[in-house]
């Protein structure tokens, strides 16, 4: 029996080899692109689905005949969620593998670390991390942060792009919705780590644009087990809504505490709430929670006429069938990045400068998993608050908030 298995494996190996030879003629050299993801370490929840997605896309593209007959080769490196490892991996990809472009890294910290390397080598990078400072030069970030009124950057780093929505867009989506509901005073409660601090900063920046006043600004630690004190303080103010900005267990604890205190004002969560598990963990307390989510999370419920519908349904069904795990927006960021790159390679060929130009000027009304992208020299993310839909938890499931 074992022998026959071995023979089967050998034969199928040979078949695969033979087929791939047939598919790509020898004169069509593979297009090599690099991918650096935090497959292990603290941010493995980002890197794992990104790696899976990259592999799946590579197969899809090659099964469909590659890019203009050239096979696509995605070389994946693990950064172990470490910025210095990310830099080493990128150097290796550029010098040894001679890649045309790089996708990733997964986190903002790692991305910031590899940005100077990519700029020096004049090679396009499409990051899978969210911070605005990845694509915006430092001086420009300082200018918009110091500006009296809310401003978005006008200058972007030449070679750097990113696919995840910016925190600012999530804050804008929430405040836009609140304005429609007639809410003018809010309390914010944020976790004291990079994600929470970023959200807190953006909310403070964006709120005045929507005529919303922040009347309480509470914080808690990422491992805290009880936030009733902060919420009680908020209950003592005249806030008409609470916005919580965190990921992981604290957002569930805040939800439970909110329900426990019988607070009559609605609870809003950040886009970090977009996992069904959070609803389960909150055990009924999540009813009525409102949050801005990417359409990928609610793929089935998105209208057929939506430009993203086809992309997100295909990605979701194929990913879940193949990896037996729920699809996540993180993997979606890698999906968008690699797809964009493949489109650029198809149109521009293996020329770094032409790929960069294509990404900056030709990605228009481009439906991805994270939203409909419109890149421009002033915006290397290409997404607005329209990338989010406001979702309310109803009967233990996501529903469009009205």
């Amino acid at each position: 029996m074992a022998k026959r298995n071995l023979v089967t494996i050998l034969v199928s190996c040979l078949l695969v080899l033979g087929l791939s030879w047939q598919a790509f003629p020898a004169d069509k050299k593979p297009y090599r692109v690099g991918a650096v993801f935090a497959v292990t370490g603290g941010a493995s929840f980002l890197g794992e689905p990104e790696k899976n997605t990259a592999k799946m896309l590579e197969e899809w593209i090659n099964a469909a005949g590659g890019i203009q007959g050239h096979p696509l080769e995605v070389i994946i490196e693990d950064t172990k969620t470490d910025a210095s490892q990310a830099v080493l991996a990128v150097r290796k990809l550029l010098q040894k593998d001679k890649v045309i472009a790089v996708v990733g890294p997964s986190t903002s910290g790692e991305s910031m670390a590899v940005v100077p390397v990519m700029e020096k080598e004049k090679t396009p990078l499409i990051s899978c991390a969210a911070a605005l400072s990845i694509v915006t030069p430092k001086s420009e970030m300082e200018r918009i942060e110091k500006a009296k009124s809310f401003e978005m950057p006008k200058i972007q780093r030449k070679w750097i792009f990113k696919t995840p929505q910016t925190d600012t867009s999530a804050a804008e989506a929430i405040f836009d919705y609140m304005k429609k509901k007639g809410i003018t005073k809010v309390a914010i409660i944020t976790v004291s780590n990079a994600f929470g601090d970023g959200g807190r900063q953006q909310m403070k920046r964006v709120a005045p644009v929507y005529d919303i006043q922040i009347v309480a600004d509470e914080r808690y630690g990422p491992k805290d087990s009880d936030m009733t004190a902060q919420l009680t303080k908020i209950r003592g103010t005249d806030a008409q809504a609470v916005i919580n900005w965190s990921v992981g267990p604290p957002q569930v604890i805040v939800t439970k505490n909110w329900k426990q205190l019988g607070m009559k004002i609605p609870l809003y969560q950040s886009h970090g709430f977009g996992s069904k598990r959070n609803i389960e963990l909150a055990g009924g307390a999540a009813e009525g929670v409102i949050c801005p989510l990417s359409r990928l999370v609610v793929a089935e419920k998105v209208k057929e006429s939506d430009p993203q519908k086809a992309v997100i349904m295909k990605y979701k069904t194929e990913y879940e069938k193949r990896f037996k795990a729920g699809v996540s927006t993180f993997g979606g960021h890698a999906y968008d990045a690699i797809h964009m790159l493949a489109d650029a390679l198809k149109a521009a060929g293996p020329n770094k400068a032409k790929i960069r130009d294509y990404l900056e000027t030709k990605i228009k009304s481009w439906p991805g998993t994270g939203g409909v992208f419109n890149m421009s020299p002033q915006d290397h993310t290409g997404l607005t608050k329209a990338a989010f839909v406001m979702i309310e938890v109803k009967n233990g499931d996501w529903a469009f908030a009205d």
Partner: protein
Amino acid sequence: MKPPRSFVHVRENSLKMSLTSQIIQFLFSGLNVGSIYALVALGFTMIYNATSIINLAQGEFVMLGGLIMVFLTVFLQIPMYLGLILTVAAVTLLGAFFERLAIHPLRNASLLTLIIVTLAGSILFRGIAMFLWGKDPYALPPFSSSKPLHLWGATLQPQFFWVLGITGLVLLGVWFFFNRTLIGKAMTACSFNSTAARLVGINVRKMVLFSFSLSAAVGAIAGIIITPITLMEYDRGPLLALKGFAAAVLGGLGSGGGAIVAGFLIGILESLGAGLVSSGYKDAIALLVMLIVLWVKPSGLFGSAEESELKKF
């Protein structure tokens, strides 16, 4: 244990809360968190008394208690009371194994080495838990209803009474054990003077084993009662251990009663600090108070100065 129904539907109409009811709410939140700190601090004290070791894996016993309980009652659908008994038994056994495999073979090593061994144990337990349960947090349904109750303008989860009640029972049990049973008294004797205890025929090694098992059991109970409120995940231990250790020191290392009082005190200080001063400085306020107390009275709230001079820490 179910509170009277009449409390349930008293709701204040105004959006704002009076300061009194706010403070009552802060006190309740503080008691809730404080009871867990108290249990962790008690675990520290028990091992410290028998061995002079600071067991840095104390927080992991809490984490394991919560996660094993989730596994038994949520995945295997075992009834709650049976799950509670099995979980405590399992974690107690783990504590005993830990002592036999890691502490016992090194009985002649220096104290510092042993403390580092407990640190290694903490990392090992956390790693195993991550391997078995993954990084996701887990929830446990509350022991009774989840409908919030209203008391003097403050709102409470029924689980709060379970936490307080069970903590009270554990403290009572531990007091009874140390003051009314032979083994308990023998352990107390070890803590006073292990050489003298050995001379009167007490098996000191066995007492060390007991102390680890017992403190694992107390940790497990803390984990079980807190999980319905706060969820539990593999890396919750270190922060709980830190707060519990702070309480043990504040109460006067080695004083069981002191550890408990200090645990509640830190919980309440944190909650009042977050509510009345600033939530950003919540942890700092509690630790600042601790530093001031230790500065004024280095032996802690309930430790005697004479005794602390004889201790290694």
